[in-house]
């Protein structure tokens, strides 16, 4: 670990104001619209209330937008010659990955903290353990989407593709039962989409698996979803990293 390197990278990322707006402010704004202002926000769900349910969903959405973008940018930087420049220094790849992971987690923490702070101020209620565990699960689980960003960045090699990858998070969030409560066929389909497992896990300390339509997911459903998608993203990323090397 290298403090100067990490801090300079952090400063560089926070310089991108529009990017920071979409990762940090947009989810908090969504929470205010979908969570804090709805009539049912005070109704009880598991170990808390509806406002908290929406708050966790939005924090999760913000966190994955951040990690997808950082993973994608890292892939692009390395392909655009920065990887060669770093290859001329003593910096080992493992340190580079460790620093990038730390940065991704730090940036992902921003929307989580902001949304949780707004939630606490506007009526989200739950047990202490539900607050703490859901926040941690949001943060840790978002790493899966850093791999997704890396995959898109190495596969398509363009800024536009990485921007689009962050953008597709909106679609995955709808499909993954994050923005509006799904039911029936849509809910069944949702369980196969990449954000469903992660968000359901993050909400698990609150809901214990209960969904808004009254049904309950056993714990293995979201866990299996996360494991399968992490495997798909990782295999894809490894495939494209290898293909990129062959091409040199």
């Amino acid at each position, binding site marked *: 670990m*290298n403090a100067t390197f990490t801090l*300079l990278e952090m400063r560089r990322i926070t310089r991108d104001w529009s990017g920071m707006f979409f990762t940090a402010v947009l989810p908090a704004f969504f929470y205010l619209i979908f969570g804090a202002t709805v009539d049912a926000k005070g109704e009880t769900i598991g170990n808390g209330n509806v406002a908290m349910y929406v708050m966790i969903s939005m924090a999760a959405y913000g966190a994955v937008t951040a990690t997808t973008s950082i993973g994608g940018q890292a892939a692009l930087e390395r392909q655009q010659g920065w990887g060669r420049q770093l290859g*001329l220094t003593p910096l080992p790849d493992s340190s580079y990955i460790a620093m990038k992971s730390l940065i991704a987690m730090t940036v992902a923490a921003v929307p989580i903290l902001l949304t949780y702070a707004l939630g606490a101020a506007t009526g989200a209620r739950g047990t202490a353990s539900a607050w703490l565990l859901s926040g941690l699960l949001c943060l840790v689980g978002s790493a899966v989407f850093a791999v997704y960003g890396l995959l898109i960045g190495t596969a398509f090699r363009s800024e536009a593709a990485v921007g689009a990858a962050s953008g597709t998070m909106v679609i995955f969030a709808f499909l993954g039962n994050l923005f509006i409560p799904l039911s029936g066929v849509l809910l069944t389909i949702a369980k196969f989409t990449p954000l469903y497992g992660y968000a359901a896990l993050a909400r698990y300390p609150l809901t214990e698996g209960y969904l808004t339509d009254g049904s309950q997911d056993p714990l293995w459903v979201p866990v299996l979803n996360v494991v399968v998608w992490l495997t798909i993203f990782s295999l894809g990323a490894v495939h494209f990293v290898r293909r990129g090397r062959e091409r040199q």
Partner: protein
Amino acid sequence: MHTTPSPTAASSGEPAIELRDLVKTFRPLRGSTDTVVTAVDGIDLTIGQGEVVAFLGPNGAGKTTTLDMVLGLTEPTSGTARVFGRPPRTAVVGGHVSAVLQTGGLLRDLTVRETVRMIASTYAVTAPVDEVIDRAGLAELSNRRVSKCSGGEQQRLRFALALLPDPRLLVLDEPTAGMDVTARHEFWQTMHADASAGRTVVFATHYLEEADAFADRIVLVAGGRVVADGPTAEIRSRASGRTVTAVVADDAVARATAALFGLPGVTDVRRRGERLAITASDSDAVARILLGELGGRDLEITTAGLEEAFMALTGRSPAQPSPESPPDGIPARRHGVPEEVAR
């Protein structure tokens, strides 16, 4: 330009670079019909400490691939590369070798100074950041974003990064590619100013003039092999043919041709439309007689390009690789094969 190695360097005695039967092949892209590409086809080369050596060759000759192996960025398919007697990656980690790469390699949204600080932080010991910025002539620009720097300024920044570990071997891969004449001139001035420390410098270029102006020794590379290697003066004298052309009246052509062939150093005289083109080592003497007693006008003198140098040095056109050469080792513009993009 030649400097004596410092006592410590001499006592360690190892050559700066030692390449033994170095080969690098690339597998073709999946789905393409290409065969295996041999980028480097058995290079043997020893470069002593304190030498300033030009790696001269056309695009696709294998220069960048060879230097990548010297820098540990690419693993050889077979053969060995040693830098100061060590494996390349070890030499990089120890700060003994650094490089200015051809393209890319910078983060656009950092400032010049932040970039230098960031790379400096990866070394255990470096020259002071501000001193390096000064030596690369970047003091005025240190707070400018990389994205706002010109190509030449970005190249000076890469040079600053390469100076950070105070390396004993500095590798420059086509350092002036894409620069205009002024920027190119400024870059080499900065290099000259810095070359005092007895550093070993190896640079790749496809400009004969650059090799001529800066190197003690020229290694000519084509088709992944060394085709000529010697002191700059020797290589230049073998490749320094100039072409003089002038408009000569029709009735004077026969007499002019005979007279010109009589001059020492004239190797070729031929007709190109209304102009007469003479290839010679002493272009002054040709020009004098052309404009004087032969009544020529509209005279032009051009220095031999690298292609002509190749023909002079190897006795064959770069467009006609020998049968055992790799299929795309040399760009063959004349035969309609598109020039390979520089890696």
